[in-house]
């Protein structure tokens, strides 16, 4: 394995029962970089993220994180590795029975023996980094979508992980919150020396902040490159995706019998 890649995915396939979601994916995430995995809904990109996080195991091929094969890890090994990972869930997944402060302090209290005074300083630093030091007493139900996402980001980076996984960090946000989250992902990655994997379908925001992009469609990687290469790409799928065109390699119509046949417009009736 190469020391410069934190994540290496070798010819990985995955199926939910009979339904094959990923079909032989190869993908590398270099240390210190922000890499986006893009694709339409249901293309298998979230499955890929769950494979990296060890929530599911590949049916074929190997996923390695920091040199460790995820399929070979037992629960203890997996938990040891996860202590060095953070994950931002699509809607934050904050613990609703705890305040913002307690959410960020949660892992510190669970995994370390730090005194409460030190935890307090660390939590305030983390919250300050996402601009929400003033919201520490709020309950998750009192936060807007964007604020909840920022608290979740502070929580995901609470123990200074080596890797942060983002599951649709931009979904359902207004343009300002979207820009804020995008910037935070980039800034935290560089300031804390993290490696980030962003799963998203928000092409414009992610092209502004990431170092490299993989496009997934129907379980295979159909294109990859730096944001610059992607913008210039003339591959039909990438073009359709980046420019949001209605029809193309991803057809507008769900497969159906011929229209004329469905409307019974055969020659005799027309």
């Amino acid at each position, binding site marked *: 394995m190469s020391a410069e890649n934190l994540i290496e995915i070798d010819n990985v396939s995955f199926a939910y029962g009979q339904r094959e979601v990923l079909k032989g994916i190869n993908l590398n995430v270099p240390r210190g970089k922000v890499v986006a995995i893009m694709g339409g809904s249901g293309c298998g990109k979230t499955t890929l993220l769950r494979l990296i996080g060890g*929530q599911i195991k590949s049916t074929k091929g190997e996923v390695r994180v920091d040199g460790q094969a995820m399929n070979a890890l037992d629960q203890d090994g997996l938990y040891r590795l996860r*202590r060095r990972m953070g994950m931002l869930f699509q809607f934050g*997944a904050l613990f609703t029975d705890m305040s913002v402060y307690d959410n960020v302090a949660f892992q510190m209290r669970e995994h370390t023996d730090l005194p409460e005074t030190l935890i307090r300083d660390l939590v305030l630093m983390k919250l300050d980094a996402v601009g929400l030091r003033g919201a520490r007493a709020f309950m998750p139900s009192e936060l807007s979508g964007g604020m909840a996402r920022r608290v979740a980001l502070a929580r995901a980076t609470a123990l200074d992980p080596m890797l942060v996984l983002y599951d649709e960090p931009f979904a359902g946000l207004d343009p300002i919150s979207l820009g804020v989250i995008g910037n935070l992902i980039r800034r935290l990655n560089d300031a804390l020396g993290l490696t980030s994997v962003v799963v998203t379908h928000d092409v414009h925001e992610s092209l502004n902040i990431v170092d490299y992009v993989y496009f997934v469609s129907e379980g295979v990687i159909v294109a990859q490159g730096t944001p610059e290469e992607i913008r210039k790409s003339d591959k039909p799928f990438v073009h359709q995706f980046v420019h949001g065109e209605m029809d193309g390699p991803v057809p507008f119509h769900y497969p159906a019998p011929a229209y004329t046949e469905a409307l019974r417009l055969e020659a005799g009736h027309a």
Partner: protein
Amino acid sequence: MLRRSAAALSGIGRRVIDAVWRLGYASRFFALTLLSSGTSFRRIGLIIKEIYFTGVLSLIIILVSGLFVGMVLGLQGYETLQTYGSESALGVLVALSLVRELGPVVAALLFASRAGSAITAEIGLMKATEQLTAMEMMAIDPIARVVAPRFWAGVISMPLLAAMFSAMGVFGGYLVGVVLIGVDEGSFWSQMQSAVDVKHDVLNGVIKSFVFGIACTWIALLEGYDAPPTAEGVSGATTRTVVTSSLAVLALDFVLTALMFRGA
């Protein structure tokens, strides 16, 4: 004809396999909960916090119901006993009915609908909003951190709630029998004291409520943990918790009563 009966047979077979699978899943979940209880006992604060939510917040409904059940027992008991001229035994009747049966059983039914449904809904929603997955991704076992403290809180709360239900019931019986109707106070209490045996009656009642506590909390936790992560899934799971717990309490009560009070 042959094909139809084959289909019916295979349908029955499938249901039996499903039921056995679910029983195995539930047992495994129970064993995992017990095995993952270390954290709860090392950090007893986790259990105490849950005792507040399951036990303390159920107190009002338990105490009020206990009072009314005791008052009804006082009225009905007096009606029947006075026919035989033995209304002085009213205290015994009220106390034995409560300590042996009504205390553990009614408290458990109320516990299942008040605390059990809340536990299922809470855990089901935590699952639906990915909070349990988030915990797993933080390398924290949700069974140890979320399920086990709630389990022990339920098991500890249940006998205490049943005891308070019975105490309140006896007080209700006293209010109606002695204060309102005018049964002799001395014989009400003294007959109760001599007839109620600590081991045979009180201890058996406590054992019952302990078993009901395990059953109700286990069912509530399992239904929540296993709920499909949708609004419909959580609402279905909450209903199942109340129905299954209630049936389990009544069925277990019969089994335990048969074992404990065999005409001795």
